[in-house]
């Protein structure tokens, strides 16, 4: 188990290192931050001075080494767009907003999808099953940004129940979280359903019934305990796509989280922030996956001992 955990950790570190190269290369390929920072009427002297100030006149490999050295210490440099703040600071400042939103989205996904998937599998072929599958298909067929705008119009403008946008309490989070969660709910529901169907068909579930176990115990303690492994393995991917989903949805709802930050940073060629935020996303994703693998091993004794 320890060996397994260590191996996964080392693999993740290797990936992370490769990602630093990609992120650095890509952010520099996007062009010079000077193009976005300076006004159209900037003079030649202004351009040269800024280039010097930002260290952009150094050779690329040296810029990379400096970047890597500093990044290891958690220092990505000063933001070019949010002047006066460190890139790390800007990211740390925005990250909680995304984690809150993403967390809620994840929570909604799980809270809705798991019971829906289980019910749909247990009551297979009934109207409940058809309803759940219909909703799941619907959720997987609608672009998140469009759903977000439609939700704003219905619940904020039309009904006036919830605020349209902005950063605030739980009320502000509901619509964007649903917009992010919609696709995930759909995916997770389908996944849970198919996993449950497979498990419900097994002999050990039959044996549990033979024992005289109640239907609740059979479905949740016997069947779901096994079927859960499948959605669990998906959580790694889920965490990643929640982050990605937040990029679009944060723009629609004016929710200033890390996704919004990433878009703004790329548009402004704010290299330090791009690098910091992408590294954070990558790190979060890799960690989530290592965690999922470990959880997986913990839940399924066969993996643990194999």
């Amino acid at each position, binding site marked *: 188990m320890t060996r397994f955990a260590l191996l996964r950790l080392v693999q993740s570190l290797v990936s992370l290192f490769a990602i630093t190269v990609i992120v650095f290369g890509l952010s520099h390929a996007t*062009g*010079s931050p*000077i*193009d*976005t*920072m*300076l*006004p*159209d*009427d*900037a*003079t*030649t002297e*202004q*351009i040269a*001075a*800024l280039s010097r*100030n930002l260290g952009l006149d150094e050779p690329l490999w040296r810029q990379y080494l400096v970047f890597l050295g500093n990044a290891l210490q958690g220092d990505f440099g000063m933001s070019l*767009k*949010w*002047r*006066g*703040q460190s890139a790390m600071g*800007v990211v740390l*400042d*925005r990250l909680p907003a995304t984690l809150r939103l993403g967390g809620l989205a994840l929570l909604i996904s799980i809270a809705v999808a798991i019971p829906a998937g289980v019910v749909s599998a247990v009551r297979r072929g009934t109207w409940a099953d058809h309803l759940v599958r219909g909703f799941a298909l619907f959720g997987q067929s609608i672009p998140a940004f469009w759903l977000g*705008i439609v939700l*704003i*119009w219905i619940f*904020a*403008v*039309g*009904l*006036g*129940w*919830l*605020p*349209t*946008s*902005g*950063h605030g309490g739980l*009320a502000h989070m509901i619509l964007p979280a649903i917009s992010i969660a919609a696709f995930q709910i759909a995916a997770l529901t389908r996944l849970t359903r198919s996993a449950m169907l497979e498990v419900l068909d097994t002999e050990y579930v039959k044996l549990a019934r033979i024992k005289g176990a109640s239907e609740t115990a059979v479905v949740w303690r016997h069947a779901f305990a096994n079927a859960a492994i499948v959605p669990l393995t998906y959580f790694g991917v889920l965490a990643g796509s929640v982050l990605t989903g937040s990029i679009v949805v944060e*723009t*629609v*709802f*004016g929710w*200033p*989280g890390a996704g*919004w*930050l990433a878009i*703004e940073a790329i*548009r*402004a*060629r704010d290299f330090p922030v791009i690098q910091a935020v992408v590294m954070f996303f990558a790190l979060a994703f890799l960690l989530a996956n290592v965690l999922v693998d470990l959880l997986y091993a913990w839940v399924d004794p066969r993996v643990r001992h194999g």
Partner: protein
Amino acid sequence: MTRISTSTERNPSFRWLRAGGLAAALALGIAAPPAEARDVTIVLDPPSAETNRFWETSGDNNLGPAMQTLLGNDPVTGEIDTSTVAHTWEVNEDFTSWTFHLRPEAEFHGDWGPVTTADIVHSYQLHTSNDSILTGLTLLRGAELEVLDDHTLTFHLPEPRPNFLFAHAGRGIMLIYSKAQYEAEGIEGYDAAPAGTGHFRLTERRIGEGVTFEAVEDHWSGETSAVSTLDIRYVAEPATKLAMLLAGEADIVALPRELQSEATEADYAILSSTNAAMQTAFMFGNIYEEGVEGYNPELPWMDIRLREAMNRAIDRDVLMEVLYDGRAEKLVRFMMDPRGEGYAPELAERFDEDYGYDPERARELLGEAGYPEAFADPVIPIISTTLGGNPEFPVLAELLQVFFDEVGLQTEIREMDWGTLGGMSRARTAFVLRPMRNAPIRPSVQGLSIFYSSAGNPINFVETAQMEELATAMNASIDPEERGEIARDAFTYLYELYADIPVASVGYEVAVDPDTIVGWTYPGATAIGLSHWHLIEPVAE
């Protein structure tokens, strides 16, 4: 003064939804408490830089409510006036020494004391430092400041700068920061909340969300804002902005013109700046003469007949209607404004004749030029781009394509972000038709020399011997009449050259909720279009 009548009945199609929704919201207890009338929420496009260090931005002043420049603008005419820290100014004959007299009563927010010349010197140093990336900085840089007393100082300039005041009002690239605060708190103090002299005090900046200002009680100017807090929120998505207005979350919203009709149909009002705030145009890339870096004889629009044809292919009436909902004026010449130097009214009179919609003539011109056979690459690349404050640019690109196609021009739309476009233009390889704006409207001579001569910055649309000569003469002259003459010649020259596709001269507009806002008079004289925040008139309680 812009006034609007308050209406009681809103768009009925939302009424019924609201009625039910409101009851449910009350039952659920999650509705936001109704905002106090004097708390005003304004929704704007996110600025290009979010920072309290104005000198480290390109000059989009989002500190406006709190920070003032040496001089101000008249809310109605937009003329530079002495409504802010300085009460008078003088200039010597050759425009090299500008003296300002500060108001003794002007003081900073908090306990940072009165404004003195030391603050001006300090602010000048900040704004002309190496970190400064402000637009039009050449106008400000290189001065020697002579402090005459606590309230009088002189800027000694290395050469005549007849438009020097534009750096202090209008473009306004030097905000007055407190030296005392800097000495006490350092740059961190500014980053937290800089003390200014405006009618509002900055209380909080939330990255990505906005800035909050609080009205200063008993402001030194004697005018106190009727608005008590000003919550400026940054939202990029137009649909969301409109939703915020219609949901009653915002009082004033900078809406794209395309969406303004949605607001007016629901009985919201549009408030325009009292003057034109910006000019828009489509520029032909690199109309250069041989020998100039970036000269490319193969560009189809190097043939003046094509430039005329393109101008004539456009039905500008439709353009005004589609892009600006009819609330804009056709632009005769990019950078030329009736209020500025060198205004040539005869060009406006000739405009229909020379630039008017005439697809027949356009086809003829193309025929004469041998288009497309005589051109190596006859395809006209049109840039579609987004720029905060100009949501119409992508539509403009599509419309140009429609009109060009109509007369037989081959076109291709290329999407590109503003930064990349700038990089290309700077490298002088922008072999495209690209949108451009002039906001706030620059002094004529400055505008002409920036974008139509090689002086200073690398981005140039025209570089010809004749234009260089005119620009040099213009910049050398300190005789206002002579400068006007030369500017007029330059405008006429560019006009006859069909140097670009002038589009519109437009005011800045916001959509407002007439239930909470009565009016707001602002001249449209600043880079972001808005100013005079203390003149926002909320509905009386």
